[in-house]
Protein backbone atom coordinates (compact mmCIF):
# COMPACT_ATOMS: atom_id res chain seq x y z
CA UNK A 1 0.00 0.00 0.00
CA UNK A 2 1.46 3.35 -0.99
CA UNK A 3 -0.04 5.74 1.51
CA UNK A 4 1.95 5.28 4.71
CA UNK A 5 -0.91 6.54 6.92
CA UNK A 6 -3.39 4.06 5.45
CA UNK A 7 -0.73 1.38 5.69
CA UNK A 8 -0.33 1.99 9.45
CA UNK A 9 -4.10 1.65 9.90
CA UNK A 10 -4.28 -1.51 7.76
CA UNK A 11 -1.37 -2.93 9.74
CA UNK A 12 -3.31 -2.64 13.01
CA UNK A 13 -6.55 -4.07 11.65
CA UNK A 14 -5.28 -7.08 9.70
CA UNK A 15 -1.56 -7.73 9.66
CA UNK A 16 -0.87 -7.15 13.35
CA UNK A 17 -4.37 -7.45 14.76
CA UNK A 18 -3.81 -7.04 18.53
CA UNK A 19 -6.07 -9.97 19.46
CA UNK A 20 -5.71 -12.61 16.78
CA UNK A 21 -2.10 -12.00 15.82
CA UNK A 22 -0.25 -10.18 18.61
CA UNK A 23 -2.32 -11.87 21.35
CA UNK A 24 -2.21 -8.72 23.49
CA UNK A 25 -4.84 -7.47 25.93
CA UNK A 26 -6.19 -10.92 26.71
CA UNK A 27 -7.78 -10.00 30.08
CA UNK A 28 -10.47 -7.61 28.79
CA UNK A 29 -10.89 -9.80 25.70
CA UNK A 30 -11.74 -12.88 27.73
CA UNK A 31 -13.65 -11.11 30.48
CA UNK A 32 -16.00 -8.64 28.80
CA UNK A 33 -16.93 -10.37 25.54
CA UNK A 34 -20.02 -12.06 26.98
CA UNK A 35 -22.03 -10.04 24.45
CA UNK A 36 -21.30 -8.07 21.29
CA UNK A 37 -22.46 -4.78 22.87
CA UNK A 38 -20.06 -5.17 25.79
CA UNK A 39 -17.26 -6.01 23.37
CA UNK A 40 -18.01 -2.94 21.27
CA UNK A 41 -18.09 -0.69 24.35
CA UNK A 42 -14.78 -2.00 25.58
CA UNK A 43 -13.27 -1.71 22.10
CA UNK A 44 -14.38 1.86 21.51
CA UNK A 45 -13.26 3.12 24.93
CA UNK A 46 -9.87 1.45 24.51
CA UNK A 47 -9.55 2.92 21.00
CA UNK A 48 -10.16 6.46 22.27
CA UNK A 49 -7.54 6.08 25.00
CA UNK A 50 -5.14 4.44 22.58
CA UNK A 51 -5.32 7.18 19.96
CA UNK A 52 -5.02 10.04 22.49
CA UNK A 53 -2.20 8.44 24.49
CA UNK A 54 -0.29 7.48 21.32
CA UNK A 55 -0.49 11.08 20.11
CA UNK A 56 0.57 12.65 23.41
CA UNK A 57 3.41 10.18 23.96
CA UNK A 58 4.64 10.74 20.40
CA UNK A 59 4.55 14.50 21.00
CA UNK A 60 6.52 14.15 24.23
CA UNK A 61 8.90 11.47 22.96
CA UNK A 62 11.92 13.78 22.90
CA UNK A 63 11.20 15.24 26.34
CA UNK A 64 10.57 12.08 28.37
CA UNK A 65 13.89 10.77 29.79
CA UNK A 66 14.59 7.16 28.91
CA UNK A 67 15.02 6.03 32.53
CA UNK A 68 11.52 7.01 33.66
CA UNK A 69 9.61 6.44 30.43
CA UNK A 70 7.33 3.72 31.85
CA UNK A 71 5.99 5.82 34.76
CA UNK A 72 5.59 8.72 32.34
CA UNK A 73 3.56 6.58 29.91
CA UNK A 74 1.40 5.30 32.77
CA UNK A 75 0.61 8.86 33.89
CA UNK A 76 -0.40 9.85 30.34
CA UNK A 77 -2.55 6.73 29.86
CA UNK A 78 -4.14 7.00 33.30
CA UNK A 79 -5.17 10.59 32.60
CA UNK A 80 -7.07 9.62 29.46
CA UNK A 81 -8.57 6.52 31.11
CA UNK A 82 -9.91 8.67 33.94
CA UNK A 83 -11.53 10.98 31.37
CA UNK A 84 -13.13 8.06 29.52
CA UNK A 85 -14.20 6.49 32.82
CA UNK A 86 -16.08 9.65 33.92
CA UNK A 87 -17.62 10.21 30.48
CA UNK A 88 -18.92 6.64 30.32
CA UNK A 89 -20.30 6.81 33.86
CA UNK A 90 -22.21 9.97 32.94
CA UNK A 91 -23.53 9.09 29.47
CA UNK A 92 -23.69 5.27 29.24
CA UNK A 93 -24.46 4.06 32.78
CA UNK A 94 -25.71 0.60 31.62
CA UNK A 95 -22.56 -0.19 29.69
CA UNK A 96 -20.48 1.27 32.52
CA UNK A 97 -22.15 -1.13 34.93
CA UNK A 98 -21.59 -4.10 32.64
CA UNK A 99 -17.90 -3.40 32.06
CA UNK A 100 -17.27 -2.42 35.70
CA UNK A 101 -13.67 -2.81 36.80
CA UNK A 102 -12.38 -3.32 33.26
CA UNK A 103 -12.65 0.39 32.41
CA UNK A 104 -10.06 1.54 35.00
CA UNK A 105 -7.97 -1.49 34.06
CA UNK A 106 -7.48 -0.04 30.56
CA UNK A 107 -4.55 1.79 32.22
CA UNK A 108 -2.54 -1.41 32.28
CA UNK A 109 -3.83 -2.75 28.97
CA UNK A 110 -0.91 -4.37 27.17
CA UNK A 111 -1.95 -2.99 23.79
CA UNK A 112 -1.76 0.63 24.94
CA UNK A 113 1.55 0.31 26.78
CA UNK A 114 2.89 -1.95 24.03
CA UNK A 115 2.09 0.55 21.28
CA UNK A 116 3.48 3.43 23.36
CA UNK A 117 6.74 1.59 23.88
CA UNK A 118 7.08 0.01 20.45
CA UNK A 119 5.60 2.66 18.18
CA UNK A 120 4.67 6.03 19.61
CA UNK A 121 8.03 6.59 21.31
CA UNK A 122 9.78 6.33 17.92
CA UNK A 123 7.33 7.91 15.42
CA UNK A 124 5.68 11.21 14.61
CA UNK A 125 2.37 12.39 16.06
CA UNK A 126 0.32 11.76 12.90
CA UNK A 127 1.80 8.31 12.30
CA UNK A 128 1.20 7.39 15.94
CA UNK A 129 -2.38 8.57 15.65
CA UNK A 130 -2.87 6.36 12.57
CA UNK A 131 -1.31 3.44 14.41
CA UNK A 132 -3.69 4.05 17.33
CA UNK A 133 -6.68 4.17 14.98
CA UNK A 134 -5.63 0.94 13.25
CA UNK A 135 -4.88 -0.96 16.45
CA UNK A 136 -8.06 0.35 18.08
CA UNK A 137 -10.27 -0.65 15.16
CA UNK A 138 -8.58 -4.06 15.00
CA UNK A 139 -9.17 -4.55 18.73
CA UNK A 140 -12.80 -3.40 18.49
CA UNK A 141 -13.58 -5.64 15.51
CA UNK A 142 -12.02 -8.64 17.26
CA UNK A 143 -14.00 -8.00 20.47
CA UNK A 144 -17.28 -7.58 18.57
CA UNK A 145 -16.71 -10.80 16.61
CA UNK A 146 -15.84 -12.80 19.74
CA UNK A 147 -18.76 -11.27 21.62
CA UNK A 148 -21.17 -11.98 18.77
CA UNK A 149 -20.14 -15.64 18.52
CA UNK A 150 -20.37 -16.15 22.28
CA UNK A 151 -23.71 -14.36 22.52
CA UNK A 152 -25.17 -16.33 19.60
CA UNK A 153 -24.05 -19.77 20.79
CA UNK A 154 -24.38 -19.18 24.51
CA UNK A 155 -27.58 -17.15 24.82
CA UNK A 156 -29.26 -17.27 21.41
CA UNK A 157 -29.09 -13.50 20.86
CA UNK A 158 -27.18 -11.08 18.65
CA UNK A 159 -26.62 -7.49 19.83
CA UNK A 160 -29.29 -8.18 22.47
CA UNK A 161 -31.94 -9.30 19.94
CA UNK A 162 -33.25 -12.82 20.48
CA UNK A 163 -32.48 -15.06 17.48
CA UNK A 164 -33.71 -18.39 18.83
CA UNK A 165 -35.28 -19.62 22.06
CA UNK A 166 -34.50 -22.75 24.05
CA UNK A 167 -36.64 -25.61 22.76
CA UNK A 168 -36.62 -29.39 22.57
CA UNK A 169 -34.68 -29.14 19.31
CA UNK A 170 -31.86 -26.92 20.44
CA UNK A 171 -30.86 -24.97 23.51
CA UNK A 172 -28.14 -22.30 23.85
CA UNK A 173 -24.85 -23.82 25.06
CA UNK A 174 -24.49 -22.05 28.40
CA UNK A 175 -20.76 -22.76 28.84
CA UNK A 176 -19.91 -20.45 25.91
CA UNK A 177 -20.96 -17.36 27.87
CA UNK A 178 -18.97 -18.56 30.91
CA UNK A 179 -15.19 -18.28 31.30
CA UNK A 180 -14.22 -21.53 29.48
CA UNK A 181 -16.26 -20.43 26.47
CA UNK A 182 -14.16 -17.27 26.13
CA UNK A 183 -11.00 -19.34 25.74
CA UNK A 184 -12.69 -21.78 23.35
CA UNK A 185 -14.12 -19.09 21.06
CA UNK A 186 -10.93 -17.00 21.04
CA UNK A 187 -8.80 -20.03 20.21
CA UNK A 188 -11.18 -21.20 17.48
CA UNK A 189 -11.26 -17.78 15.82
CA UNK A 190 -7.47 -17.43 16.00
CA UNK A 191 -7.16 -20.93 14.52
CA UNK A 192 -9.51 -20.04 11.65
CA UNK A 193 -7.52 -16.87 11.01
CA UNK A 194 -4.37 -19.02 10.80
CA UNK A 195 -5.96 -21.78 8.74
CA UNK A 196 -7.14 -19.46 6.02
CA UNK A 197 -3.71 -17.80 6.08
CA UNK A 198 -4.94 -14.26 6.26
CA UNK A 199 -1.98 -12.01 5.63
CA UNK A 200 -0.55 -11.47 9.10
CA UNK A 201 2.80 -11.21 10.81
CA UNK A 202 2.72 -14.79 12.13
CA UNK A 203 1.71 -16.59 8.95
CA UNK A 204 5.14 -17.26 7.46
CA UNK A 205 5.92 -17.21 3.76
CA UNK A 206 5.77 -20.97 3.47
CA UNK A 207 2.57 -21.22 5.47
CA UNK A 208 1.94 -23.63 8.34
CA UNK A 209 2.20 -27.40 8.20
CA UNK A 210 -0.64 -29.88 8.05
CA UNK A 211 -0.58 -31.41 11.50
CA UNK A 212 0.82 -30.61 14.95
CA UNK A 213 4.59 -30.50 14.68
CA UNK A 214 5.98 -33.30 12.55
CA UNK A 215 9.50 -31.91 13.14
CA UNK A 216 9.37 -30.52 9.64
CA UNK A 217 11.12 -27.33 10.62
CA UNK A 218 12.05 -26.16 7.16
CA UNK A 219 8.53 -25.62 5.92
CA UNK A 220 7.13 -24.46 9.27
CA UNK A 221 6.42 -20.80 9.86
CA UNK A 222 6.69 -21.21 13.64
CA UNK A 223 9.26 -19.52 15.83
CA UNK A 224 10.03 -22.48 18.11
CA UNK A 225 13.73 -22.77 17.33
Amino acid at each position, binding site marked *: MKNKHLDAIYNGIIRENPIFVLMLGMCPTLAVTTSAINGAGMGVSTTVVLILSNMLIAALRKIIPDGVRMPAYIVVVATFVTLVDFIMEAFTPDLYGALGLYIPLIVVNCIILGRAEAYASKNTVTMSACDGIGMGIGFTIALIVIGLVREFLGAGTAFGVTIYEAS*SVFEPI*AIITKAPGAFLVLAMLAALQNKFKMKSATNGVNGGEEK*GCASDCESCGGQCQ
Partner: protein
Amino acid sequence: MSDSLSVKASPRIKTGAQWGTLMFDMEIALLPVVLFAAYRFGFGAIKVIMASVLACVLTEWLYDVCLKRKTGITNGTAVVTGLLLGLTLPSDINLYVPVIGGIFATLIVVLLYGGYGQHFMQPALASRCFLLISFADEMTTYTVDGISSATPLTVLQQGGAPSLLDMFLGNINGSIVEVSTIAVLIGFAYLIVRRAVKLIPPLVYVVSFVLYMGLFGGHGFDMSFIGAQILGGGFIFSVAFFASDIVINPRTAAGQVIYGVLLGVLTGVYRTMGFAPESVSYAIICCNLLIPLIDKFLPGKVKEAA
Protein backbone atom coordinates in the same frame (compact mmCIF):
# COMPACT_ATOMS: atom_id res chain seq x y z
CA MET B 1 11.22 -36.24 4.79
CA SER B 2 11.89 -39.95 4.45
CA ASP B 3 9.54 -42.60 5.80
CA SER B 4 11.99 -43.80 8.44
CA LEU B 5 11.84 -40.42 10.13
CA SER B 6 8.09 -39.92 10.05
CA VAL B 7 6.41 -40.00 13.43
CA LYS B 8 3.28 -42.15 13.47
CA ALA B 9 0.49 -41.80 15.98
CA SER B 10 0.99 -43.60 19.28
CA PRO B 11 0.94 -46.39 20.54
CA ARG B 12 4.53 -46.62 19.49
CA ILE B 13 5.98 -49.29 21.75
CA LYS B 14 3.45 -52.08 21.66
CA THR B 15 4.17 -54.19 18.63
CA GLY B 16 1.54 -56.02 16.63
CA ALA B 17 -1.23 -53.85 17.99
CA GLN B 18 -2.84 -51.51 15.50
CA TRP B 19 -5.41 -48.81 16.01
CA GLY B 20 -7.96 -50.94 14.16
CA THR B 21 -7.67 -54.10 16.27
CA LEU B 22 -7.42 -52.14 19.53
CA MET B 23 -10.52 -50.16 18.75
CA PHE B 24 -12.35 -53.29 17.63
CA ASP B 25 -11.55 -54.81 21.03
CA MET B 26 -12.93 -51.70 22.73
CA GLU B 27 -16.12 -51.97 20.71
CA ILE B 28 -16.57 -55.63 21.67
CA ALA B 29 -15.88 -54.78 25.33
CA LEU B 30 -18.54 -52.08 25.25
CA LEU B 31 -21.10 -54.36 23.61
CA PRO B 32 -22.38 -55.92 26.88
CA VAL B 33 -22.87 -52.44 28.31
CA VAL B 34 -24.85 -51.34 25.27
CA LEU B 35 -26.97 -54.52 25.32
CA PHE B 36 -27.67 -54.09 29.02
CA ALA B 37 -28.65 -50.47 28.40
CA ALA B 38 -31.04 -51.60 25.67
CA TYR B 39 -32.60 -54.11 28.10
CA ARG B 40 -32.80 -51.65 31.00
CA PHE B 41 -33.82 -48.41 29.26
CA GLY B 42 -35.24 -49.62 25.96
CA PHE B 43 -34.92 -47.78 22.68
CA GLY B 44 -34.30 -44.37 24.29
CA ALA B 45 -30.77 -45.25 25.40
CA ILE B 46 -29.94 -46.74 22.01
CA LYS B 47 -31.07 -43.52 20.33
CA VAL B 48 -28.76 -41.47 22.58
CA ILE B 49 -25.80 -43.75 21.90
CA MET B 50 -26.47 -43.79 18.16
CA ALA B 51 -26.73 -39.99 18.05
CA SER B 52 -23.44 -39.58 19.86
CA VAL B 53 -21.62 -42.17 17.68
CA LEU B 54 -22.98 -40.68 14.46
CA ALA B 55 -22.01 -37.16 15.56
CA CYS B 56 -18.44 -38.26 16.29
CA VAL B 57 -17.99 -40.20 13.05
CA LEU B 58 -19.60 -37.58 10.81
CA THR B 59 -17.61 -34.75 12.42
CA GLU B 60 -14.33 -36.54 11.77
CA TRP B 61 -15.35 -37.41 8.21
CA LEU B 62 -16.44 -33.85 7.42
CA TYR B 63 -13.25 -32.42 8.94
CA ASP B 64 -11.13 -34.75 6.82
CA VAL B 65 -13.13 -33.91 3.71
CA CYS B 66 -12.77 -30.18 4.37
CA LEU B 67 -9.02 -30.54 4.83
CA LYS B 68 -8.86 -32.76 1.73
CA ARG B 69 -7.00 -35.61 3.39
CA LYS B 70 -7.47 -39.36 3.79
CA THR B 71 -10.16 -39.96 6.33
CA GLY B 72 -9.36 -41.80 9.54
CA ILE B 73 -12.85 -42.92 10.47
CA THR B 74 -12.31 -46.48 9.28
CA ASN B 75 -10.08 -47.34 12.23
CA GLY B 76 -13.06 -47.07 14.55
CA THR B 77 -11.64 -44.60 17.07
CA ALA B 78 -14.46 -42.14 16.53
CA VAL B 79 -16.99 -44.92 17.07
CA VAL B 80 -15.41 -45.77 20.43
CA THR B 81 -15.39 -42.12 21.51
CA GLY B 82 -19.04 -41.85 20.55
CA LEU B 83 -19.94 -45.02 22.44
CA LEU B 84 -18.08 -43.92 25.58
CA LEU B 85 -19.72 -40.49 25.48
CA GLY B 86 -23.21 -41.79 24.80
CA LEU B 87 -22.96 -44.24 27.68
CA THR B 88 -22.22 -41.52 30.22
CA LEU B 89 -25.41 -39.57 29.42
CA PRO B 90 -28.91 -39.94 30.86
CA SER B 91 -31.02 -42.29 28.75
CA ASP B 92 -33.91 -39.96 27.91
CA ILE B 93 -31.95 -36.81 27.19
CA ASN B 94 -32.89 -34.60 24.23
CA LEU B 95 -30.94 -35.76 21.21
CA TYR B 96 -29.22 -32.44 20.52
CA VAL B 97 -27.16 -32.95 23.68
CA PRO B 98 -25.30 -36.10 22.51
CA VAL B 99 -24.91 -34.52 19.07
CA ILE B 100 -23.29 -31.35 20.45
CA GLY B 101 -21.22 -33.52 22.79
CA GLY B 102 -20.00 -35.69 19.93
CA ILE B 103 -19.03 -32.68 17.85
CA PHE B 104 -17.19 -31.10 20.80
CA ALA B 105 -15.36 -34.33 21.70
CA THR B 106 -14.21 -35.01 18.15
CA LEU B 107 -13.58 -31.55 16.78
CA ILE B 108 -12.26 -29.56 19.70
CA VAL B 109 -10.72 -32.13 22.03
CA VAL B 110 -9.20 -34.38 19.36
CA LEU B 111 -9.00 -33.09 15.79
CA LEU B 112 -7.81 -29.57 16.52
CA TYR B 113 -4.98 -30.99 18.62
CA GLY B 114 -3.76 -33.08 15.70
CA GLY B 115 -6.08 -36.08 15.66
CA TYR B 116 -6.38 -39.30 17.62
CA GLY B 117 -3.15 -40.26 19.33
CA GLN B 118 -2.18 -36.64 19.93
CA HIS B 119 -5.09 -35.64 22.12
CA PHE B 120 -4.17 -34.93 25.74
CA MET B 121 -7.51 -35.50 27.40
CA GLN B 122 -10.18 -38.18 27.33
CA PRO B 123 -12.47 -36.78 24.62
CA ALA B 124 -15.60 -38.49 25.92
CA LEU B 125 -15.10 -37.22 29.48
CA ALA B 126 -14.04 -33.73 28.45
CA SER B 127 -17.20 -33.56 26.39
CA ARG B 128 -19.30 -34.87 29.28
CA CYS B 129 -17.97 -32.07 31.51
CA PHE B 130 -18.70 -29.56 28.74
CA LEU B 131 -22.29 -30.82 28.55
CA LEU B 132 -22.62 -30.96 32.33
CA ILE B 133 -21.81 -27.25 32.63
CA SER B 134 -23.87 -26.25 29.58
CA PHE B 135 -27.04 -28.25 30.12
CA ALA B 136 -27.04 -28.78 33.88
CA ASP B 137 -30.74 -29.59 34.17
CA GLU B 138 -30.87 -31.97 31.24
CA MET B 139 -27.74 -33.79 32.31
CA THR B 140 -28.84 -34.50 35.88
CA THR B 141 -32.43 -35.61 35.30
CA TYR B 142 -32.49 -39.38 35.21
CA THR B 143 -35.56 -41.37 34.32
CA VAL B 144 -36.03 -45.14 34.34
CA ASP B 145 -39.32 -46.61 33.12
CA GLY B 146 -40.86 -43.16 33.15
CA ILE B 147 -40.05 -42.51 36.81
CA SER B 148 -37.39 -40.00 37.71
CA SER B 149 -35.77 -40.27 41.11
CA ALA B 150 -32.50 -39.50 42.87
CA THR B 151 -29.39 -41.47 41.95
CA PRO B 152 -27.73 -43.52 44.71
CA LEU B 153 -24.94 -40.98 45.08
CA THR B 154 -27.44 -38.18 45.65
CA VAL B 155 -29.18 -40.37 48.23
CA LEU B 156 -25.81 -40.99 49.84
CA GLN B 157 -24.93 -37.30 49.87
CA GLN B 158 -28.19 -36.57 51.63
CA GLY B 159 -27.40 -39.15 54.30
CA GLY B 160 -29.41 -42.12 53.03
CA ALA B 161 -28.14 -45.67 52.50
CA PRO B 162 -28.80 -47.21 49.08
CA SER B 163 -28.88 -51.01 48.73
CA LEU B 164 -25.58 -52.40 47.50
CA LEU B 165 -27.14 -55.40 45.77
CA ASP B 166 -29.52 -53.18 43.83
CA MET B 167 -26.59 -51.01 42.79
CA PHE B 168 -24.62 -54.02 41.62
CA LEU B 169 -27.50 -55.53 39.67
CA GLY B 170 -28.59 -52.21 38.23
CA ASN B 171 -31.97 -51.75 39.95
CA ILE B 172 -31.19 -48.09 40.41
CA ASN B 173 -31.46 -44.78 38.64
CA GLY B 174 -28.70 -42.98 36.83
CA SER B 175 -26.90 -42.40 33.56
CA ILE B 176 -26.84 -45.24 31.02
CA VAL B 177 -23.63 -46.73 32.32
CA GLU B 178 -24.22 -46.10 36.01
CA VAL B 179 -26.75 -48.94 36.19
CA SER B 180 -24.76 -51.61 34.38
CA THR B 181 -21.91 -52.51 36.72
CA ILE B 182 -21.94 -56.21 35.78
CA ALA B 183 -21.84 -55.49 32.06
CA VAL B 184 -18.94 -53.07 32.56
CA LEU B 185 -17.01 -55.70 34.51
CA ILE B 186 -17.59 -58.28 31.75
CA GLY B 187 -16.24 -55.82 29.17
CA PHE B 188 -13.24 -55.03 31.38
CA ALA B 189 -12.48 -58.76 31.79
CA TYR B 190 -12.50 -59.11 28.00
CA LEU B 191 -10.07 -56.22 27.64
CA ILE B 192 -7.73 -57.76 30.21
CA VAL B 193 -7.77 -61.07 28.32
CA ARG B 194 -6.99 -59.22 25.09
CA ARG B 195 -4.28 -57.22 26.90
CA ALA B 196 -5.76 -54.03 25.54
CA VAL B 197 -5.56 -52.17 28.87
CA LYS B 198 -3.01 -50.98 31.39
CA LEU B 199 -3.57 -52.60 34.76
CA ILE B 200 -1.53 -50.51 37.19
CA PRO B 201 -3.55 -47.25 37.07
CA PRO B 202 -6.98 -48.86 37.59
CA LEU B 203 -5.74 -50.98 40.50
CA VAL B 204 -4.00 -48.08 42.22
CA TYR B 205 -7.02 -45.89 41.50
CA VAL B 206 -9.39 -48.28 43.31
CA VAL B 207 -7.04 -48.82 46.26
CA SER B 208 -6.30 -45.13 46.78
CA PHE B 209 -9.97 -44.20 46.41
CA VAL B 210 -11.03 -46.81 49.01
CA LEU B 211 -8.28 -45.62 51.38
CA TYR B 212 -9.24 -41.97 50.93
CA MET B 213 -12.92 -42.66 51.47
CA GLY B 214 -12.15 -44.78 54.55
CA LEU B 215 -9.87 -42.17 56.09
CA PHE B 216 -11.61 -38.93 55.12
CA GLY B 217 -15.09 -39.98 54.00
CA GLY B 218 -16.55 -39.38 57.44
CA HIS B 219 -17.87 -42.91 57.90
CA GLY B 220 -14.64 -44.80 58.64
CA PHE B 221 -14.14 -48.12 56.91
CA ASP B 222 -17.85 -48.82 56.80
CA MET B 223 -18.40 -51.37 54.05
CA SER B 224 -21.87 -50.19 53.06
CA PHE B 225 -20.65 -46.61 52.64
CA ILE B 226 -17.48 -47.44 50.73
CA GLY B 227 -19.29 -50.08 48.68
CA ALA B 228 -21.93 -47.57 47.68
CA GLN B 229 -19.22 -45.05 46.73
CA ILE B 230 -17.53 -47.63 44.52
CA LEU B 231 -20.68 -48.94 42.88
CA GLY B 232 -22.28 -45.52 42.55
CA GLY B 233 -21.86 -43.11 39.68
CA GLY B 234 -19.41 -43.69 36.90
CA PHE B 235 -16.60 -44.97 39.13
CA ILE B 236 -16.45 -48.60 37.93
CA PHE B 237 -16.87 -47.53 34.31
CA SER B 238 -14.11 -44.93 34.63
CA VAL B 239 -11.77 -47.43 36.27
CA ALA B 240 -12.41 -49.99 33.54
CA PHE B 241 -12.38 -47.81 30.44
CA PHE B 242 -10.72 -44.49 31.24
CA ALA B 243 -8.03 -45.03 33.89
CA SER B 244 -6.85 -48.10 31.96
CA ASP B 245 -6.56 -46.24 28.65
CA ILE B 246 -3.45 -47.28 26.75
CA VAL B 247 -2.77 -43.88 25.24
CA ILE B 248 -3.67 -41.33 27.89
CA ASN B 249 -1.51 -42.70 30.66
CA PRO B 250 2.00 -42.04 31.95
CA ARG B 251 4.70 -44.09 30.25
CA THR B 252 6.48 -45.61 33.24
CA ALA B 253 5.10 -47.88 35.96
CA ALA B 254 6.10 -45.39 38.67
CA GLY B 255 4.33 -42.64 36.78
CA GLN B 256 1.23 -44.78 36.48
CA VAL B 257 1.20 -45.38 40.24
CA ILE B 258 1.35 -41.61 40.86
CA TYR B 259 -1.39 -41.10 38.28
CA GLY B 260 -3.59 -43.73 39.97
CA VAL B 261 -3.11 -42.17 43.41
CA LEU B 262 -3.93 -38.71 42.06
CA LEU B 263 -7.08 -40.07 40.45
CA GLY B 264 -8.21 -41.76 43.66
CA VAL B 265 -7.52 -38.77 45.87
CA LEU B 266 -9.09 -36.23 43.51
CA THR B 267 -12.21 -38.35 43.04
CA GLY B 268 -12.46 -38.67 46.81
CA VAL B 269 -11.97 -34.94 47.37
CA TYR B 270 -14.60 -34.06 44.78
CA ARG B 271 -17.08 -36.61 46.13
CA THR B 272 -16.71 -35.66 49.79
CA MET B 273 -16.28 -31.90 49.48
CA GLY B 274 -17.70 -31.08 46.06
CA PHE B 275 -21.10 -29.62 45.41
CA ALA B 276 -22.17 -32.21 42.84
CA PRO B 277 -22.61 -35.82 43.98
CA GLU B 278 -20.79 -37.20 40.94
CA SER B 279 -17.40 -35.86 39.87
CA VAL B 280 -15.37 -38.78 38.52
CA SER B 281 -15.23 -37.16 35.10
CA TYR B 282 -13.75 -33.94 36.49
CA ALA B 283 -11.15 -35.89 38.45
CA ILE B 284 -10.07 -37.84 35.39
CA ILE B 285 -9.71 -34.91 33.01
CA CYS B 286 -7.78 -32.95 35.66
CA CYS B 287 -5.36 -35.85 36.04
CA ASN B 288 -5.12 -36.20 32.24
CA LEU B 289 -3.63 -32.71 32.22
CA LEU B 290 -0.92 -33.79 34.66
CA ILE B 291 0.30 -36.74 32.58
CA PRO B 292 2.85 -34.73 30.53
CA LEU B 293 4.25 -33.37 33.81
CA ILE B 294 4.54 -36.87 35.30
CA ASP B 295 6.24 -38.07 32.13
CA LYS B 296 8.63 -35.14 32.25
CA PHE B 297 9.88 -35.98 35.72
CA LEU B 298 9.77 -39.77 35.27
CA PRO B 299 10.72 -40.17 31.62
CA GLY B 300 11.97 -43.77 31.90
CA LYS B 301 13.57 -45.48 28.95
CA VAL B 302 11.52 -45.45 25.81
CA LYS B 303 12.09 -48.53 23.67
CA GLU B 304 12.54 -48.01 19.96
CA ALA B 305 9.53 -48.95 17.89
CA ALA B 306 10.13 -52.22 16.04
